[in-house]
């Protein structure tokens, strides 16, 4: 509904105002006349009429709101509007934090306060960030359009990066009392699903959706009944969401058939190997190390190297894992990355090097503000002391 109204106004603030107006109007009108047959269409029509009224008023007042109406009317169903809005919110001319904020605010319907909480910034800071981004969209005329085929690939990368960030932020919240933020996970899943439906045949979208579904299928087993973190190795696999795993695996197949493997598809393939293994000990770590070898080519990143070291440690033992971690200790990008310390601590613990393990656990504790993760690390620290 917001997306359809933006098409008329080309002004995000005005569109938001008009859609809110429409809801208010609905409350009084529907109470008197009953709920219309197609409430969504009713609301959209009201919001768009309000927008047109506002625009006419603006014209009369000779107000120079920038670029109010598009030169050419664009036809198409509401979902096309949604797609256009996704590409506007994730335009590379906007800073990446602004892309994420706009996506959550305008496409996922989170309040500014919720977006601020999710990204650990003050409400006023987030409000200013969103306002600034909306102003730039209007002033610089960032188009409200799905990019042409020659640009689509690159622009889609930016959209998927935003969705992936929203998903991972929800899957393991960087701060707070709970491990996961379900609202962000749902927001990312819904939008990725929509994108997959609207832009079929893109291996990257299918790959990301597969990755999200396979990862999220473990949601009920990641924290124990008394609120403690449960590692992948110790999770009750009978409680993984098998229907969701099947859907993710099918999408992964689709992604791999659509073309050469993409970053998200390989990540999904790694998740799929875990999903298929009956236990942690029975996991095919040779295949997982092989997949990380492919992934590091597609996406050279110290985080990938860290995860590959974990898999190596499972395949060849903790000493091999520790050796693979050593070069990463000098990596500036990982200097404050708590998972590096935690992984190192775990290898040292398994090698019986308790004093060094304790030091690494302390380091990991200093680097996370998530209460569930902190409790887990504290328990491990007590074990090696």
């Amino acid at each position, binding site marked *: 509904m917001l997306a359809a109204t933006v098409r008329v106004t080309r002004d995000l603030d005005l569109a938001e105002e008009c859609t809110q107006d429409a809801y208010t109007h609905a409350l009084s009108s529907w109470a008197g006349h009953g709920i219309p047959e197609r409430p969504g269409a009713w609301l959209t029509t009201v919001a768009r009429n309000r927008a047109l009224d506002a625009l006419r008023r603006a014209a009369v007042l000779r107000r120079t709101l920038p670029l109010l109406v598009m030169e050419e009317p664009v036809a198409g169903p509401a979902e096309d509007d949604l797609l256009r809005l996704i590409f506007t919110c994730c335009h590379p*001319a906007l800073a990446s934090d602004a892309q994420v904020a706009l996506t959550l605010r305008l496409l996922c319907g989170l309040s500014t306060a919720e977006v601020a909480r999710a990204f650990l910034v003050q409400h006023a800071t987030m409000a200013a960030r969103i306002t600034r981004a909306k102003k730039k969209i209007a*002033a*610089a*005329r960032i*188009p409200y*359009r799905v990019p042409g085929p020659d*640009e689509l690939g690159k622009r889609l990368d930016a959209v998927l990066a935003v969705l992936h960030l929203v998903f991972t932020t929800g899957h393991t919240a960087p701060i707070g009392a709970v491990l996961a933020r379900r609202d962000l996970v749902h927001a990312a899943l819904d939008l990725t699903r929509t994108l997959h439906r609207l832009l079929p045949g893109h291996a990257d979208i299918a790959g990301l959706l597969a990755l999200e579904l396979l990862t999220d299928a473990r949601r009920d087993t990641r924290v124990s009944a008394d609120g403690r973190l449960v590692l992948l190795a110790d999770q009750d696999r009978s409680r993984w969401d098998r229907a969701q795993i099947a859907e993710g695996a099918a999408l992964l197949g689709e992604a791999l058939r659509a073309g050469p493997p993409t970053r998200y598809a390989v990540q999904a393939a790694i998740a799929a190997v875990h999903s298929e293994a009956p236990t942690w000990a029975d996991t095919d770590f040779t295949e997982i190390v092989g997949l990380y070898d492919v992934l590091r080519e597609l996406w050279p990143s110290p985080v990938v190297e860290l995860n590959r070291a974990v898999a190596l440690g499972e395949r060849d033992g903790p000493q091999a894992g520790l050796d693979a971690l050593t070069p990463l200790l000098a990596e500036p990008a990982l200097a404050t990355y708590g998972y590096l310390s935690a992984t190192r601590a775990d290898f040292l613990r398994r090698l019986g090097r308790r004093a060094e393990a304790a030091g690494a656990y302390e380091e990991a504790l200093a680097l996370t503000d998530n209460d569930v993760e902190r409790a887990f690390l504290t328990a491990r620290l007590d074990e090696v002391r």
Partner: protein
Amino acid sequence: MAKYLVLIYGDEQEWANTGPQERARIEAGHRRFAATAGAAVLGGHELMPPGTATTLRQGAADRPTVTDGPFLESKEVLGGFYLLEAADLDAAIALAGLLPEVSASHSGVEIRPIREHN
């Protein structure tokens, strides 16, 4: 349609050291840009180096203080500009992306929307 000012920035030292062959290549790039952009180019010029700039700021008794040099001192300097007319930012990016300075490691362009006063 909207108007954009495309500001061409680069390393002053690198530009000063540009040889004749490289200079010819850059100029050919601008001719190709102009041919592709056509009527979208409303104006544009290469600027003399910032050492030739004069800056005026508020002074005493309604007389500006005149100083030698650019408004902001920096390694990267404004070397030229185009005024473009384009349907939207994507169209402006597509045109400005053709400029030879975009494909050199020490330079780049900034696209600024023009505020229209009706």
